[in-house]
């Protein structure tokens, strides 16, 4: 079945079994690395992406439901040369050990910060409830998300010089 997918602002025509979870299409057909397979059960959050502004577990979401939706992955947040605020914050706070869970964390945080740039500690923890980290990087992940909120506010402040 042919499906039209909008990922990070680009449209892709994919021929795929409609039951295929979105995760495998992102990773294998579109060759996007950030969303990870962790459990295939919607329990760990490693596969989290953003669909129409909400965090979605791509390992249990059939691609057939994605037609006409706006999908964002970590690749849509910036590049290694020009990282977005979340990416810059995770680098600045050195908020990774193995890093496998981090893209999912960033997508959950992205949804939170878009709605609330100054979340409380409790709100951040609740937003990350689904996301598991096994290396124990929790304190740095929390710090990076707080820092990303600051960077986002600075970027949207009216006095800030906009990149031309």
């Amino acid at each position, binding site marked *: 079945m042919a499906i039209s997918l909008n990922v990070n602002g680009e449209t892709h025509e994919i021929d795929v*079994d409609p*039951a*295929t*979870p979105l995760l*495998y299409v992102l*990773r*294998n057909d579109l*060759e*996007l*690395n*950030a969303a*990870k*397979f*962790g*459990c*295939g*059960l919607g*329990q*760990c959050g*490693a596969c989290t992406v953003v669909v129409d502004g909400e965090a979605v577990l791509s390992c249990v979401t059939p691609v057939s439901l994605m037609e006409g939706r706006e999908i964002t*992955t*970590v*690749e849509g*947040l*910036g*590049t*290694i040369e020009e*990282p977005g605020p*979340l*990416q810059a914050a*995770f*680098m600045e706070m*050195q908020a*990774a*050990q*193995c*890093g*496998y*869970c*981090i*893209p999912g964390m*960033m997508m959950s945080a992205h949804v939170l910060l878009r709605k609330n740039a100054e979340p409380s*500690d409790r709100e*951040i*923890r*609740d937003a*990350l*409830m689904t*996301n*598991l*980290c*096994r*290396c*124990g*990087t*929790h*304190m*740095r992940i*929390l710090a990076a998300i707080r820092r990303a909120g600051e960077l986002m506010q600075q970027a949207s402040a009216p006095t800030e010089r906009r990149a031309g």
Partner: protein
Amino acid sequence: MTIIPKDEFNTQGRNGITRRRVLVGTGALIVSFAIAPHVSAQPQPAPPAAAPEPPQLPGSLNDARRLDSWIRIDAEGEITVFTGKVELGQGIKTALRQVAAEELEVEPGEINLVTADTGRTPDEGFTAGSQSMQNSGTAIRNAAAQVREILITEAARRWNVPRETLRAEAKSIVAQDGRTIGYGELVTDQLLAVEAQPESLLKSPDKLRVMGQSLPRVDIPGKVTGGVAYVQDLRLEGMLHARVVRPPSPSAQLQEVDTAAVEQMPGVVSVIRDGSFLAVVAEGEFQAISAMRALQQAARWTEQPVLPDQNNLQAFLEATKGDIGTVAEEGSPEVTGKIFEATFRRPYQIHGSIGPSCAVAHMDNGQLTVWSHTQGVYPDQEAIAEMLGMDIAQVRVIHMEGSGCYGHNGADDAAADAALIASAVPGRPIRVQWMREDEHAWEPFGPAMLTKIRAGVGDDGRITGWNYELWSNLHSSRPGGAGNLLAARHRAQAFAVPAPRFNISQSGNGDRNANPLYVFPNRRVLWHYVPETPLRVSALRALGAYANVFSIESTMDELALLAGTDPVEFRLRHLEDPRARAVVERAAEEFGWSSGAPKGDRGRGFAFARYKNHAAYLAVALELELERETGRTRVSRAVAAIDSGEAVNPDGIRNQTQGGIIQATSWTLFEQVTFDNTRVTSTDWSSYPILRFPSAPDSVEVHVIDSPGQPFLGTGEAAQGPTPAAIGNAFRQLTGVRLYDLPFTRERVKQAIGV
């Protein structure tokens, strides 16, 4: 500033691996690979009697003795450093660059680093035991210093000036008159193709520029922007996807399976059956998963109820017929004075990497290449070659990072799965990734343990004697030996599981840290070896140190109570090593121990250990909060002090130690493998819960005590033992009740406090 060395850029392209260009060009030195003969855990043939004993060289240089095994410089001055160790998420790629850059007088970003690859790097066995800095860091630092001095000597010879007048700076040797000559120009012929010397002219601690700095990790930018970072991200031309149908239980044998329907499923290329090894290969990943699920339905297995009673592991462990080893003996085993006696128990626990194990293998004209997140590329190469009946020279194992590694997980098995499937489906690369239930049920577990203590304290407030016994499997079943690979075990021509060899070693295994570092006159420490392994077990971060330090440090608090002494003061009373005392004092001071216990439903606890009794020193003080109605506990604040020798990257030490504290907290509050008499039943994150964000602490502070000029001691496992004990001690301080059974589940907590 973020320093990203070139090879990191090269491997972070989104669409697959870019071959590193280093060593491909016309490098002056690339004459031959100076890889030492295979040195692993296996015994080596004895050298001829007449051969003189070679001198002991620092770190892993002793095994791979030529400088150009470790460092090569090409005609353009490109520097490549080779390590047999691997990145596990611990930051070793960054720290090793710092060490090399320091002694070579270059910037870390100018170092290309090649990690474990049987085709290119020295054999450093396994990346395990918190030994990468001791072994590889020490080797690379010494090799780099010796290379620098060789370059200075060569420049002095060419210019005919005294070498003392020259210095190394920015990839050049500089003379007093300002003349310079680049490293690339100096390195010709076989200049570095020489054996390393036992002594090196290392830079003195006050001259260090790069070591001791918290440089940003080189791998993080790629990992947070969607770069190719893991073997899971490897996409090769023509690659197929495979899944293995693992047996439903450890004893299960495949009786029959009708594969005809599965073979007709969309995208299926092949169904492979070899004894109880069952796998499917498909064009697409989800096609492989769908076919695997169908095969699971089609397969008929015979199973035996061979597992012990999960609710009485003590009986299983005590019933062992294994040998008893004496770990330590001093004075008399008699214990006098006020006596504390207890039994502690630890369940089976999993590594539980967030990304299930994965590997890619390609059989191409009889040559097999395997990309794996194994901890030991050389032992894996040997085991895979044995499994497939291939010559070792036909098998190359290349390390690529996986999801976080905390010991012997499914990495080697996934590599064997991919290799076996690739040998059945040659010509196209085969990618295997385990499913979540494969990882939870089939990775080797950290073994269950039982410990018994009887210790006393005299009227003088000092420990009189210490009688400690532990029951444990060996915590190691790594390959060497194909029989340690699941695929080889399950084949029709099955490889037998190699019998582990019980022995008492300096680093310890099940008995790691079983002998307290504290000074007192009488002690006896015994290990009742448990050879029976109804559940597969191997190395999980810290091995026996987790249960042993938990037992020892719980006991220290009880003895302090019997002595009527503050627990920190009681520990200091029995510690003579000044570095041990320093971490205890520092953790207590930074925590504010002297200001007394917290109020309300919070308790505080303290614990200390020197990992393996010869590696890093770590003390931790923490606060535990208790919700009495639900039995829910949470570590709210932890403060640790660690001395891991000369600190190369202090933030890396902090990051790993914070992680160790939080991971050990998760083990301690939540984690146990569950099983019935036949099958493992904890097969996902809901049946095997781990710590989630709402249970994470408010703060975890780590204070690094630098020891300039001292040997590297390693960091990764130091927190695993003290953390559970500090939690137990905090619970005891708050409630007056001691918890003896790990994990401290809500049910156990409620039972303990009578709710």
